């Protein structure tokens, strides 16, 4: 906190002095509503109003300690010599460390963002060492799709995969996102902020952000003029592993404006443990690094960024099964998995080996005070190798080395954007181009292809009465050349799609709060796997069949987000609906006979889908140092065409955390403890269970339900956790316990729920040292 100004108006005797002032956010300059202001010596105090103004009357002349407290900020004190009427402005820094992991709905002028909901750096400290999708869970509406406990994909408002885009360092992340066992290849240590944008703000990046866009933002390379950095460590008892990270940034010399940032992280875990047994082959290891250089001229800025991600993850050994009979025996418990009491760090087949490389160059040039041009080029290389248990009979040494599925995806992206800002009116216009090449080797599953895509967008933000409006439109043309085995090398099958995306958002300031309304339509070309995948998907024991007749998918979404402060309570509530026309999904259609027995066949089909739901967060202070955060995440989805339920839609979730923070104890700053509870309901809206018995009896003639899953949705569950933390100088420490009661449960959003329980109790220690 800093005291910006004290104006002595005129000297007065007795106790008639008045202190007027405003409490503002140091970052945004906006008034902070309902801060409490107290003169400690006289216990005189007042609350600021909705825009931060306060007034203290009847003050005697003298020396005072003025204490200002606000939710989300560390309490700050300032010594004042009061001799006459005084006007002061306090600017308070948000200190996330004493606050719950409450998210920020920010309106950042530089990005013109209306609907950004995020998790900041200080909050990310609580989840150091976890996967990106786990770090993003503090965002309202964000959930996860897991495959075992080593693979986690983000799910936002029920949508995932090709419908939820990920942007890393301003570049659209390009990997094999269609598979639910393919998680984003991003180093979670890289992120300084993780947030979600939806609607109009996503138009700048993509035509196909049907479910929104997850932004992973590294620290700004120009962020520090002096040398600064951090060391981070995390250890966990479950999995007997941990993670280490280090970051260094600064300016090379005062004489010329060359900035740099370097970062490295490593992660290693062994087998995870349920309350009863170790899960065989569930370890993971990771080594990542990135570096950036930036040059700041008078009117321009240039930066290059490079990141390298390497991961090897074990897949639960007993999730790979031969056929439906094997699956049935495991699900019904006829066959129990030979899990052990022996812990191991070994990663054997089945496993995945993933590499991702990103190079980005960006130049920004200020033409004048009102106009700016930005050019970005990026190149990504994604390598995904999947090593199955099943290598063939009596494999040769060479066969033992080779993956069964091997994807190599290279993507080039270019963007040119012009921005113009005159007062409250800002505009941007841009062109984007994409080239993508996917090479696949291995078991017959997917053809090779090349994509090119060209986009054109325009956006505008303006004030209209009490409303702030932002609207935009984007045209995109998408081409695909499909090679072996669909087309030949000389004569590929060519497909093209084009369409328009458009969105509007309106924000209105209310008394101590605001309301944001958003409407958007996006479209997405069918992905190559949806068109042409053909073959057996191991692990789930199903045949997937693409459909070359698929049309493009189009979404129509509406959402309303309301923020309000009531005294010491803050509320953030969102309601949304997303109607998706020609929604592409895997529909179970038939039972197919193969030499390995009967398998259900899932065909890519189209229907109309409706998603709707609500996310609510309430946080506040009960009394001094005692705060709470309560959240509810509700989502529903339905196949409009048939009335069936879709599989893998998150069940409703409710959570509450109570936190007690104490004043500083000499060198121990802001010690706190918290206790949390999290209840996830059973997914009652789940498809019918596959009729194993009648299929085994009558073979392929059994009539199947129009939609099915292999096992009933697991029961709801309640998990308890506890945490404690403090700061010691520049070091912060955090101790946590997850699944404190070591509850045995299965998670509907884990594809391996058929085979395994979720991990049991886990103690974690997190240390971060800034220098």
């Amino acid at each position, binding site marked *: 906190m800093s005291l910006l100004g004290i104006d002595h108006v005129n000297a007065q005797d007795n106790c008639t002095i008045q202190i007027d002032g405003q409490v503002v956010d140091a970052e945004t300059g906006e008034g902070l509503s309902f801060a409490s202001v107290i003169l400690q010596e006289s216990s005189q105090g007042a609350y600021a109003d909705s825009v931060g103004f306060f007034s203290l009357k009847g003050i005697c002349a003298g020396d005072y300690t003025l204490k200002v407290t606000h939710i989300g900020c560390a309490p700050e004190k300032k010594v004042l010599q009061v001799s006459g009427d005084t006007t002061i402005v306090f600017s308070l820094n948000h200190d996330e460390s004493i606050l719950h992991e409450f998210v920020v709905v920010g309106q950042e002028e530089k990005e013109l963002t209306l609907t950004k909901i995020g998790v900041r750096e200080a909050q990310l400290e609580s989840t150091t060492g976890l996967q990106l999708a786990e770090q993003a869970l503090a965002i309202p509406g964000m959930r996860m799709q897991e495959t075992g406990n080593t693979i986690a994909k983000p799910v936002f408002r029920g949508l995932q995969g090709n419908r939820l885009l990920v942007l890393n360092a301003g570049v659209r992340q390009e990997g094999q996102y269609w598979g639910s066992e393919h998680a984003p290849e991003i180093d979670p240590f890289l992120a300084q902020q993780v947030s979600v944008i939806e609607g109009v703000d996503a138009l700048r990046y993509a035509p196909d952000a049907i479910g929104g866009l997850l932004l992973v933002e590294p620290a700004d390379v120009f962020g520090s003029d002096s040398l600064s950095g951090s060391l981070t460590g995390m250890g966990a008892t479950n999995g007997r592993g941990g993670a280490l990270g280090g970051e260094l940034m600064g300016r090379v010399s005062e004489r010329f404006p060359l900035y740099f940032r370097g970062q490295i992280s490593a992660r290693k875990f062994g087998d995870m443990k349920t309350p009863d047994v170790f899960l065989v082959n569930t370890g993971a290891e990771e080594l990542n690094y990135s570096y950036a250089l930036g040059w700041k001229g008078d009117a321009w800025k240039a930066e290059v960024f490079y990141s390298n991600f390497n991961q090897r993850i074990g897949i639960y050994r007993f999730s790979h099964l031969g056929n439906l009979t094997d699956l049935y025996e495991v699900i019904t418990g006829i066959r129990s998995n030979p899990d052990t009491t022996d812990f191991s760090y070994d990663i054997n087949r089945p496993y995945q080996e993933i590499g991702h*490389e990103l190079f980005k*160059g960006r130049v920004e040039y200020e033409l004048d005070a009102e106009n700016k041009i930005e050019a970005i080029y990026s190149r990504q290389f994604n390598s995904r190798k999947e090593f199955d248990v099943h290598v063939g*009979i009596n494999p040769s040494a060479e066969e033992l080395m080779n993956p069964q599925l091997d994807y190599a995806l290279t993507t080039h992206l270019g963007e040119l954007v012009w921005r113009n800002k005159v007062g409250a009116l800002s505009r941007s216009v841009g062109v984007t181009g994409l080239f993508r090449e996917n090479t696949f080797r291995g078991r*017959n599953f997917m053809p090779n292809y090349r994509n090119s895509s060209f986009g054109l967008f325009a956006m505008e933000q303006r004030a209209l009465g009490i409303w702030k409006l932002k609207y935009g439109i984007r045209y995109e043309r998408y081409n695909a050349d499909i090679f072996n085995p669909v087309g030949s090398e000389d004569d590929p099958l060519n497909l093209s799609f084009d369409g328009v995306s458009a969105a509007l958002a309106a924000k209105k300031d209310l008394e101590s709060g605001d309301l944001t309304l958003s409407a958007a339509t996006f479209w997405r070309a069918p992905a190559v796997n949806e068109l042409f995948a053909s073959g057996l998907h191991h692990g789930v024991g199903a*045949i997937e069949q693409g459909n070359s007749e698929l049309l493009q998918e189009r979404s129509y979404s509406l959402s309303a987000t309301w923020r309000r402060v009531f005294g010491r309570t803050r509320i953030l509530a969102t309601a949304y609906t997303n109607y998706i026309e020609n929604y592409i999904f895997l529909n179970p259609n038939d039972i197919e006979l193969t030499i390995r027995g009967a398998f259900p*066949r899932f065909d890519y089909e189209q229907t109309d889908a409706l998603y709707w739901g609500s996310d609510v967060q309430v946080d506040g202070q009960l009394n001094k140092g005692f705060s709470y955060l309560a959240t509810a995440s509700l989502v529903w989805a339905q196949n409009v065409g048939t009335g069936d339920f879709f599989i893998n839609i998150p069940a409703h979730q409710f959570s509450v955390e109570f936190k007690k923070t104490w004043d500083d104890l000499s060198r121990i700053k802001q010690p706190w403890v918290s206790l949390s509870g999290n209840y996830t309901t059973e997914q009652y809206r789940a498809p019918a269970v596959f009729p194993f018995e009648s299929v085994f009896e009558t*073979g392929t003639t059994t009539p199947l339900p129009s939609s099915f899953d292999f096992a009933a949705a697991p029961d709801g569950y309640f998990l308890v956790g506890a945490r404690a933390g403090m700061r010691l100088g520049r070091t912060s420490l955090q101790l946590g316990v997850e699944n404190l009661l070591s509850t045995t449960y299965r998670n509907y959003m884990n594809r391996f729920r058929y085979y395994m329980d979720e991990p049991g109790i886990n103690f974690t220690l997190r240390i971060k040292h800034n220098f």
Partner: protein
Amino acid sequence: MNISKYLRFSVFVLAALTFVACENDDDDDDDTPSAVNEEELITDLRLTFTSTFDQSETTFIFSDTDGPGGSDPLIDDIVLSDSTAYSVSIEVLDASNPNDVEDITEEIAEEDEEHQFFFIPGSGAESTLTIAYDPTELDDDGNPIGLSSVWTTLDATPSGATVRVVLRHELDKAATGVSDGDITNAGGETDIDVTFNVSVN
């Protein structure tokens, strides 16, 4: 800007360009995405029946040369004579490329401790057909494999009778009943699971 500033800037640009030389560039050439290398696949199961009565040989085949998905497999009906013992030998083939049919039987025989066939009569075949492992064909642990077996017909089968032939690998051959041909406790992963219609006349 003076000269030395330009100099520093060009050093910066050079440094930046070195970033571009990424390690995976060799995969990023301009060739057309390459063709698929298909891995080994089991497509055909052939059961050759030799009658101990007249030494006549008959072969019944399950064949799905295009692998899972695509066109339906071809499955022969097994037709046998009443009150006859047959010695049955199994061949497993990869016939996905008709010009290069690969015999996988040998490979199963080499990894015999890890593989075992099971024969499960059903829908009326239970009482009219008995199937036993060839007692002379054992792996190094003294357990059966099933590449060779003896089928004895007792009586005419009712219509709709079937025999299920299963090949499991990495199974537990020591589990109760497994070496006698009972699949219940075998565990492991299924390589082959085929049901033939069978009629004994």
